[in-house]
């Protein structure tokens, strides 16, 4: 009898162990993970929101090109409406929705070797400036800010044009550049390495993020549910905590 009890207990332990190591961590619906292409600036917040999906983070323009060329993607989240809207017009994604907004900032290394205190200092001081490439949303927004402020001349001080905004953040954080234009949310994860210099509200571009389900996604129901999650209170709270702005008044 004792032997039988031990055998049953052992079986229960094995089953429980198997359940704990696989079943408990599996997605309830047992659907495969979604493949989500997202703007580099969404890296931290999307991973924190849902680590179970397959993410690819990069410049929205590069992701747009990959999707256009047939990359197997379920959801695309872009840092500029231009990228999602182009795919929508081509019938590649379903109707995009705006899900958050952001602001641009100038960051400098904590040591601030160039002594930059204001964006206007870029004009008068010898600086190594790093920006995102013009086709990358952050790069386009940077050009917009400089144009609005009458400071496009500082582009002559650009030493590097990066393929996404995280590369700009990295170069400044590592002290390889004196200053760089990034989103305010990019500065947060490296706040011990960089200082943020505000860009005036009147010069801010309209940074709007859009998200869309890829039309040919084989996991469309799950993809639509994921988009709904981003738009839900849970998703919006996470974005807010990461420093993103609430849905813009005009699109909410």
């Amino acid at each position, binding site marked *: 009898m004792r032997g039988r009890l031990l055998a049953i207990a052992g079986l229960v332990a094995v089953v429980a162990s198997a359940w704990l190591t696989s079943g408990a961590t599996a997605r309830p619906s047992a659907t495969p993970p979604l493949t989500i292409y997202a703007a580099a600036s969404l890296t931290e917040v999307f991973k924190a929101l849902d680590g179970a999906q397959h993410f690819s983070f990069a410049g929205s323009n590069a992701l747009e090109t990959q999707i256009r060329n047939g990359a197997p993607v379920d959801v695309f989240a872009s840092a*500029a*409406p*231009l990228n999602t809207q182009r795919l929508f017009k081509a019938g590649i994604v379903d109707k995009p929705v705006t899900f958050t907004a952001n602001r641009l900032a100038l960051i400098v290394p904590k040591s601030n070797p160039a002594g930059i205190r*204001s964006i*206007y200092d870029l004009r008068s001081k010898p600086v190594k400036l790093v920006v995102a490439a013009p086709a990358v949303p952050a790069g386009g927004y940077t050009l917009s800010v400089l*144009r*609005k*402020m*009458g*400071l*496009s001349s500082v582009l002559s001080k650009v030493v590097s044009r990066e393929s996404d905004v995280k590369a700009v953040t990295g170069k400044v954080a590592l002290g390889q550049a004196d200053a760089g234009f990034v989103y305010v949310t990019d500065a947060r994860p490296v706040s011990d390495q960089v200082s943020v210099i*505000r860009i*005036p*509200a*009147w*010069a*801010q571009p*309209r940074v709007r993020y859009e998200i869309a389900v890829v039309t040919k996604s084989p996991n469309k129901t799950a993809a639509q549910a994921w988009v709904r999650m981003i738009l839900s209170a849970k998703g919006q709270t996470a974005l807010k905590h990461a420093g993103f702005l609430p849905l*813009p*008044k*005009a699109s909410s």
Partner: protein
Amino acid sequence: MRRPLSRRRLLTVAAGTAALAALPVRPASAAREEELAYANFAVSSELLLADLYAKALAAKVVIGPGQAALRAGRRAAIQHAGALSGLLTGAGQDAPAAEDFDFQWPAKAFHTPDATAATARVVLRALLGAYQTAVVTVSEPSYGIVYTSLAASAGQQLGALSALGASGVVEPFPVALDLESASDTLEPYLG
């Protein structure tokens, strides 16, 4: 990436376009970027000023001639914003709109006529100072006339603040401000 015009924005632009038509201003396509920077700042600041007047009217603490001054100031600010937006769109730039801002006002900014006048004075002084500098910065004479006109209007509005019951302040030489200083003054309100 241009947005469709909302009714509010359409009215603003229409009012501004009408006002601009009355001024001898040339198309802005040839304007220098530095000149347009003043217009970008000024549109935002005039929208801020219009919001200030709207909030002051909604607070209903100013009555009589002061209320008429607030209404006139609001109309002027809306027309100025529209006219300046016209300069920017004429130069191929997107103009800021009220929806782009989350204007911030101190808690007691509109609790009394004096508080209202003090808040308005801060905004108007920054605007007047920027307009004064804009007049001598722009290379296009017709722009200079626009900024002179806007500076005169800001001065008139500062004078009209006495109708709010505040003691009149007459400055013999109002200080001209560069764009950075004017921007720093208004940044806390622009949100």
